[in-house]
């Protein structure tokens, strides 16, 4: 399994990537939505994208909309990982095509629970 971690904070990218690697993922990183799209257009193949909302150049909601508009990327699971915590913002992200939504701050266990919901936890990791 391969995941792309999209966040303008390198600290947060490192925290999310570390959690995913602990669950057996290979990880790539992008600093904003445009950077992530460039990597996908360049042929990067991923199963999961963890997407921050507020980022310079291209925000996470725009990225999610762009990915959902391209049938070639239909297989990618999109999870927002953001400090945006309002009810209405979660509704917006789901409407744009995000599959899951994790609010910062989160624990490693919370990432694992979400991936479990999405059927993305490697089999040998399951109880």
């Amino acid at each position: 399994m391969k995941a792309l971690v999209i966040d303008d904070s390198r600290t947060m990218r490192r925290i999310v990537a570390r959690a995913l690697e602990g669950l057996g993922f290979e990880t790539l990183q992008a600093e904003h939505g445009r950077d992530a799209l460039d990597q996908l257009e360049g042929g990067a193949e991923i199963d999961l994208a963890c997407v921050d909302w507020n980022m310079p150049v291209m925000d996470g909601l725009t990225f999610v909309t762009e990915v959902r508009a391209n049938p070639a990327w239909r297989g990618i699971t999109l999870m927002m990982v953001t400090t945006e915590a309002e009810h209405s913002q979660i509704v917006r992200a789901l409407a744009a095509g995000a599959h899951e939504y994790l609010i910062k701050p989160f624990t490693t266990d919370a990432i694992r629970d979400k991936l479990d919901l999405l059927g993305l936890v490697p089999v040998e990791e399951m109880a």
Partner: protein
Amino acid sequence: MTATVEHDQVLSIAQEVFSAMVDGDLGLLLPWEGDLPEIDDALVAWVDLHGEWSGRAVLVTAGPTALELARVLLDLDPRDEVSPDDLVDALGEIANVVGGNLKSLLPTPGTLGLPHVGDALPPLDGAVRSQHLPLSWRGRLLVIDVWVTPLVLKEKP
């Protein structure tokens, strides 16, 4: 209407941020008890909020505490050097997460600016400090402030 943020809400947000992101457990960020020492070599991280309720979430701490915080967040060895970029990024991200959660207390969603880090806080026109929380993180002083621009000022033509 004037939306307010209560002291306990700020404390609860700060404690959740630290327990989940920094410490991996509750109870390591507590209200500071006793006299407040001067903060030497202070570092300030802040994020601005815009919307029905405009303001700023601010984190202030001494340089060595900020280094320690960055080390824990980035999972670095005690002997590892923390680069200036990592220090700024780590402190800014804590302010960002605290600010984002404060924003969610607003009656209607506003927007969150990108985080900044410096050695002094630039002025925010018309803002007043509405909450001031001196906290003890593993015995070290760390201050979280919330500044609010009163709506009456904003609405003047």
